[in-house]
C-alpha cells in the first residue's frame, strides 16, 4: 500500500526521483572531513529558523516591551531559556562555520572554474550571515543592544555625504525610540532570511550543477578548456554516490554540532540580559557578542587618523576582496603552489584571533570599578605618601594606571615608575599630561601634585 502511494506520489510530483538524483549524484572520491563545513552551516541555519520561529511566538518586537517579553521567555516560558540558548549558540556556530567554510574553499581554490558563481553566492551568504548576527544581537533588547544600535549608527555616520542619513535610517529617527526595534525585527526575521533562503537555493543548485570540487593535487592546473571533461571522466572512473558515501560525514559532523549546541544551551544557557533598554542609564559597558568582539578591538586600537578610513573603506574593501577570487579562476589549485593564498588565510585568522583576544581584555577601557589602594600596596605611613595614594584613586588615576595589580590598564603600569622617571618628570607629566593622558593642572592643587609625586616616587624596586 505504502509502495503504491509513494509510486503515485513520485509519478505525479517527481519528488522522489528528483531527490534520488540529488542524493545519489556521483561525487569525487576521498573528499574527507574538510568538506563538511558547508552542510554544517546549512544545518545550523535550519536550527536557527526552527528556534527563531519558536522564539518569535513569544517575543514582542516593541521597543517598550521586548525586554519584558525576553525576561518572560528566559524565566517563565517552558523551554524558553533552552531555546534562547539554542538560538544563541546556533548563531555562534553559524558564524564560525561559515568562516571556516569560506577559508576552506579559498585554501583549496574550490572557487576556480567553473565554480566562480558558487563562490560569489557564498560570499553574499557570508555577508548575510553577519547581518543576521548583528541584527539578532540587537533583538536581545537590553541596555547593551540599545548602545550597540547607537554605536552602529555612529559608525555608519562616518561615511562621507550619506553617513548621517544612513545613521538616521538605522536609528529610525533622530534618537533611539519606539520605531527602532520593530524595524530590526523585520529585517532579522523576514528580509534577510528570505534573501538567505534564495541564495542557499542558488548555492546548492550550483553545487549540483558543477559537482563538488575534487581533492587538490600538486601540479594539477584548472584549464577551462579541459576541466569539465577531466571532472566528468574522474566521476566516471572513481565517482561515488553522494548518499551515503560522502553524506555520512556531513550528517555525523552536523549531529555532533547540534549536540554541542544543545549541551551548551542547556549547561551554559543564553547570554544574561543586562539592564533595561533605557538610554538614560549611563552606567553601561556596551560591547558586542563574541563574533564581533574583534571588530570592537579594531575600533579601539586603530590609529586615530586612519579610523574613519577603516570604518568606511574597511567593509567596502572586504566586500571587494570577496569578489576577487572569481576573477582568478585558472591555474593551480593546490595550496603548495599558492603560498600567498595560504599566507592570507593564516594572516586573516591570526588577525581576527589576536584582535579578539585584545577585545576580550579591553585594556583600553578605564577600570571604573577600581577600589582605593590597600595599605599593603601603599606600604608607607608617611602622611604625604598616604595622601598621594588616596588621591591616586580619588582623582581617577587608578582608572587607567595599575599599581601592583590594582587599577586599569589603559595607561602604563606605574608599579615601578621610580625606575623610569625622576620625581620632577612625574610632576610635569601629571600637570601637563602626555600624548594620551589628560593634563591635571586645572584639577589638582600644587600640594596634591606633590603628594601624588611623593607617592609615585615610592613605586619601584
Amino acid at each position: 500500500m505504502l509502495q503504491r502511494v509513494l509510486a503515485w506520489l513520485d509519478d505525479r510530483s517527481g519528488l522522489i526521483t528528483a531527490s534520488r538524483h540529488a542524493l545519489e549524484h556521483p561525487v569525487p572520491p576521498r573528499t574527507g572531513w574538510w568538506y563538511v563545513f558547508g552542510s554544517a552551516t546549512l544545518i545550523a541555519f535550519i536550527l536557527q529558523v526552527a528556534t527563531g520561529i519558536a522564539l518569535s511566538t513569544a517575543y514582542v518586537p516593541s521597543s517598550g516591551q521586548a525586554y519584558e517579553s525576553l525576561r518572560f521567555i528566559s524565566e517563565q516560558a517552558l523551554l524558553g531559556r533552552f531555546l534562547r540558548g539554542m538560538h544563541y549558540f546556533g548563531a555562534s556556530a553559524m558564524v564560525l562555520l561559515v568562516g571556516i567554510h569560506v577559508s576552506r574553499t579559498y585554501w583549496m581554490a574550490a572557487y576556480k572554474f567553473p565554480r566562480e558563481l558558487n563562490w560569489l553566492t557564498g560570499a553574499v551568504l557570508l555577508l548575510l550571515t553577519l547581518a543576521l548576527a548583528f541584527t539578532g544581537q540587537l533583538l536581545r533588547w537590553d541596555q547593551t543592544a540599545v548602545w550597540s544600535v547607537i554605536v552602529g549608527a555612529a559608525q555608519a555616520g562616518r561615511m562621507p555625504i550619506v553617513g548621517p542619513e544612513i545613521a538616521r535610517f538605522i536609528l529610525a529617527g533622530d534618537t533611539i525610540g519606539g520605531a527602532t526595534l520593530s524595524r530590526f525585527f523585520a529585517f532579522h526575521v523576514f528580509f534577510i532570511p528570505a534573501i538567505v533562503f534564495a541564495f542557499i537555493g542558488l548555492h546548492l543548485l550550483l553545487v549540483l550543477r558543477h559537482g563538488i570540487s575534487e581533492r587538490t593535487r600538486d601540479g594539477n592546473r584548472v584549464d577551462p578548456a579541459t576541466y569539465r571533461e577531466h571532472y566528468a571522466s574522474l566521476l566516471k572512473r572513481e565517482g561515488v554516490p553522494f548518499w551515503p558515501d560522502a553524506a555520512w560525514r556531513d550528517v555525523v559532523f552536523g549531529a555532533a554540532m547540534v549536540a554541542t549546541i544543545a549541551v551548551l544551551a542547556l549547561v551554559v544557557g543564553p547570554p544574561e540580559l543586562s539592564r533595561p533598554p533605557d538610554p538614560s542609564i549611563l552606567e553601561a559597558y556596551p560591547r558586542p557578542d563574541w563574533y564581533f568582539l574583534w571588530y570592537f578591538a579594531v575600533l579601539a586600537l586603530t590609529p586615530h587618523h586612519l579610523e574613519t578610513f577603516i570604518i568606511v573603506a574597511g567593509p567596502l574593501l572586504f566586500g571587494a576582496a570577496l569578489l576577487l577570487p572569481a576573477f582568478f579562476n585558472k591555474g593551480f589549485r593546490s595550496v603548495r603552489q599558492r603560498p600567498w593564498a595560504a599566507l592570507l588565510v593564516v594572516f586573516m585568522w591570526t588577525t581576527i584571533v589576536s584582535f579578539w583576544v585584545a577585545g576580550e581584555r579591553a585594556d583600553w577601557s578605564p577600570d571604573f570599578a577600581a577600589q582605593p589602594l590597600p595599605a599593603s600596596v601603599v606600604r608607607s605611613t608617611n602622611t604625604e605618601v598616604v595622601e598621594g595614594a588616596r588621591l591616586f584613586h580619588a582623582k581617577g588615576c587608578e582608572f587607567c594606571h595599575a599599581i601592583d595589580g590594582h587599577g586599569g590598564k589603559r595607561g602604563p603600569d606605574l608599579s615601578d615608575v621610580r625606575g623610569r622617571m625622576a620625581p620632577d618628570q612625574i610632576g610635569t607629566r601629571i600637570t601637563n599630561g602626555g600624548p594620551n593622558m589628560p593634563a591635571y593642572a586645572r584639577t589638582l592643587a600644587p600640594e596634591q601634585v606633590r603628594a601624588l609625586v611623593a607617592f609615585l616616587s615610592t613605586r619601584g624596586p
Partner: protein
Amino acid sequence: MRALAQAGEAVDQDYRTGQRARTAVIADTMAWSAGISYVGSNVVSLAFRAERGMEPAASPPVVTPRRRFLARLSLALSGLIGAVATVPVIGFLLSPLTRKAPRVWRPVGPVGDFAIGQTVNVVFEDASPLPWAGVTARTAAWLRRDDAEHFTAFTVHCTHLGCPVRWVADAQLFLCPCHGGVYYSDGTVSAGPPPKTLPQYPVRVRSGQVEIQTSPIPIV
C-alpha cells in the same frame, strides 16, 4: 553537467529495467525524508530536475508581431506589478529620513536643585515619543550649573562612536567606557580616539525651571 545527466540516466535505467527493488525505493525515501537537513537540497533537486526536463526547444519560436506585442505587454505589466509591490515598501522603510522630529524644550528641574559648579546627570523625554517606546523614549544629558543663571548641557554620547560618557567629578573628566575616550570638563578631548569636542545641547531657564532642548543623537 553531462556526467550528472548520465548518472541520472543510469538511475532511471535501473528503475525501468526493474533492477532496483521497490523496497529499495522506500528505504531510500525514508533515508532522505528522515534528514530534515536535506530539505534544502531536495528543493534544489526539483529545480535541477526542472532544468533537465525543460530544455529550450532546439529552434526558438518564430517572432511574429503578435508574439512580440504580447511579450512586451507581459514584460511591461510584470514591471508594473513589481513597482507597485516594491516602491511603497521602500518609501515606507525610508520614511525616518523624511520625518523631522520637532525640537521641544523639556524641563529637567528647578534652578535651585542644581549647585553651582556641579555637573549632574539629568533625564528627559524625547521630542515626540511613540506610545510604545517605553523607556527607550528617555534621554540623558550632563548638566552643569556654571553660575547663578547659566547652565551648560553636554551630550552623553562620545564623539568616537556614541557610547555613554561618564562624568568623574573628582578627576573633572568625562570618561568613555567603550574605547577609552577622555574629555576635559569643558568637553574638549584630552585623550583617546574621540575626533571632536563633546557637543552641547541648548539649555535655558524659564520660570525657575531649567529646560533642555531635545536634539538628535549627535552623529559626527
